[in-house]
């Protein structure tokens, strides 16, 4: 059983599958009228968010409440952080307040690892996204969604062996892409990353991926899922690409490209989407799109992570 969830790179295939299987249990519970489980009753979890995030924070909060945990939301904006308190001092304060677990989002890569490895506080840590490093629960919910769509009721115990996933866009700045690359590798999927060369990280040729600069070529072979990454238009000012139009033409999931996809190819996006930039509405709103499923599954995966880490077991008791 894992103690913290800091990255998908640190997971083993077995621990990743165990988390996905626990998430299946949570999905079953989610279909009941009473969605609540008493598992974390009496436990206090702090959502320590140093970076704006509505989607991820709410997803964690729903997961925590369904597990009956007491939830404290700490946002760096109305807190002493804006008055210049150090990260360490904030963590020491939380320790004295007696929290049982920390979910942390931080703009600095590695902040969750410091929290877990230093002797500042001794509680489980879940990384909810750190800088451009990792966003492991996003990758787990993506894998859960993929597995669910590819294997259906046969999902339990399985990986994603042989599945072909194309990840498109700003891999350079994307913690989602990094976490997905490592997790999909653990689960046996084959990953192709497609982007202009400026948005491929230095050294990525040493990662367990194929790299392509040509989206049409990458999509000309059978693909189980195409995962579009958010592109921030301010990247233009840093000379990563000339303009939004050229980006969309080259690397966007346009109507034309979407029309050429096999009907079985899933369309994914971690959100929030820039419609018309990296993805067209026809694709986002199509029956092939699992984007809203990703949101729903996020709650089950985060429940599974918190449950496993805070109770020390992956077996869910259905009391």
């Amino acid at each position, binding site marked *: 059983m894992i103690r913290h969830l800091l990255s998908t790179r640190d997971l083993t295939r077995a621990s990743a599958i165990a988390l996905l299987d626990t998430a299946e249990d949570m999905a079953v519970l989610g279909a009941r009228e009473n969605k609540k489980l008493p598992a974390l009753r009496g436990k206090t979890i702090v959502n320590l968010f140093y970076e704006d995030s509505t989607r991820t924070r709410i997803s964690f909060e729903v997961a925590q409440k369904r597990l009956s945990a007491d939830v404290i939301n700490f946002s760096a904006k109305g807190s002493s952080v804006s008055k210049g308190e150090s*990260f*360490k001092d904030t963590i020491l304060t939380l320790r004295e307040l007696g929290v049982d677990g920390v979910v942390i989002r931080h703009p600095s*890569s590695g902040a969750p690892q410091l929290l877990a*490895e230093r002797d500042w506080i001794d509680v489980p840590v879940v990384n909810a996204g750190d800088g*451009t490093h990792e966003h492991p629960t996003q990758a787990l919910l993506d894998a859960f969604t993929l597995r669910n769509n590819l294997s259906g009721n046969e999902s339990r115990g399985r990986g994603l062996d042989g599945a072909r996933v194309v990840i498109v866009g700003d891999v350079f700045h994307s913690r989602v892409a990094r976490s997905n690359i490592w997790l999909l590798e653990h689960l046996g999927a084959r990953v192709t990353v497609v982007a202009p060369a400026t948005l491929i990280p*230095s*050294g*990525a040729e*040493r*990662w367990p991926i194929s790299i392509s600069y040509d989206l049409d070529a990458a999509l000309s072979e059978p693909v189980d899922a195409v995962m579009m990454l958010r592109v921030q238009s301010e990247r233009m000012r840093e000379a990563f690409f000339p303009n939004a139009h050229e980006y969309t033409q080259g690397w966007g999931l346009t109507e034309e490209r979407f029309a050429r996809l096999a009907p079985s190819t899933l369309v994914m996006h971690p959100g929030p989407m820039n419609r018309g930039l990296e993805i067209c509405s026809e694709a986002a709103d199509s029956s092939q799109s699992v984007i809203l499923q990703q949101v729903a599954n996020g709650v089950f995966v985060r429940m599974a992570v918190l449950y496993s880490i805070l109770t020390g077991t992956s077996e869910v008791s259905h009391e």
Partner: protein
Amino acid sequence: MSEPLLFRQATLPSGEQTDVLVRDGLIVEIGSVTSKDARSVDAAGLQMLPGLVDLHTHLREPGFEQSETVLTGSQAAAVGGFTTVFPMANTMPVADNASVVELELARGREAGYVHVQPIGAVTAGLAGTALADLKGMADSRARVRVFSDDGKCVDDPLVMRRALEYVSSFDGVIAQHAQEPRLTEGAQMNEGEVASRLGLAGWPAIAEETIIARDVLIAESVGAALHVCHLSTAGSVDVIRWAKARGIRVTAEVTPHHLLLTEDLAESYDARFKVNPPLRTTEDVMAVRQGLADGTIDIVATDHAPHPTEAKECEWDVAAFGMVGLESALSIVLLTMVESGQLSWNDVERVMSRAPSQIGRLEWSGLVVGAPARLTLVDPADRHVFSTEQLASRSQNSPYLGRELPGRVAYTAFDGYLTVDAGTLVSAETVAAHASAARANSATSGGVTNG
């Protein structure tokens, strides 16, 4: 005056074992010596070197005394076997005029552990636009000859060209911190697979190499002397090698940490390993070792950069760049270069004492009769786990804490008196009293004045 010292059976850099007698601030006898009044120091098994000279130190005073002062930095230097340090100009106020460099010189003399030879800023306020009072600093009591905006690159090619030309009027040298600013915006560690995996913004090798390539060509065109600070990449070694083969007046330094440590240490997100230029790859480490061994790189310089705990015990990207290095420098050179057979003790004398003195335009005599008694004795057989016990600096941001290192400085002498005695730092009061007495003696007898 301090008591005479007789070092018995010390090993000189040549390998010769001999006695060395020190009296009145000078080396007065080398050979088989008997003395009635000298304190006898058993130096059998100890390697004697001329006092080490660090061309790249941050003493933080004035302005950042919570990190280091001239006194504490001088003590760290003595512990490391140094007798001269060149403090960089990025103090507050910046050392861009005569009054600041004279203040540093005076503080160094009062402390008395080492000769503090200030480096002046190239540009006013390190702003990179207008030249600092270069001649004013050169003509001051501090006799500044090395100028650097270290911490910042003189990236404007016009300003760099003019600075190189201008200081050549008085035999000055520009020490460049080679870092193309646009290519390193927000940079956190060496660009490459590790940085990409860790999500830390990359500091590409080309940001260093392109500036060095530009600068050697400018130096050639104006016939001026260029010194390249803390060179860190294999490509930089190639550029310097090419420039030297072409006859360009360029010298280069490498830090101890770039001779040993590699980028993968960032995987801990422990900001003790955050430094500028960043730790590089194993290939780069091998290339800078080779460059130092074959003379392409002239010297080892520490880039001793003290920072308070809170500047390092935090998120990587908000942490300060830099490591302390004075106390550990000789051990790292021993470990990486001497024990591997790439440098002899004669070479160590060259890269850590003679060549940095020459680049810094200081007189250097070495271990000869009549020379100022600036020397250090190191026990090369010693191995110890490096700890805060070995740090005399006010700051503790050493990347070597907990690591086993070879070699311990047993004695350091500055102008005839001990600053480190049997492995222990001599107290500030004792050293200051010796320094004061030496100054009084020098004023009456016209004795040792060499910088």
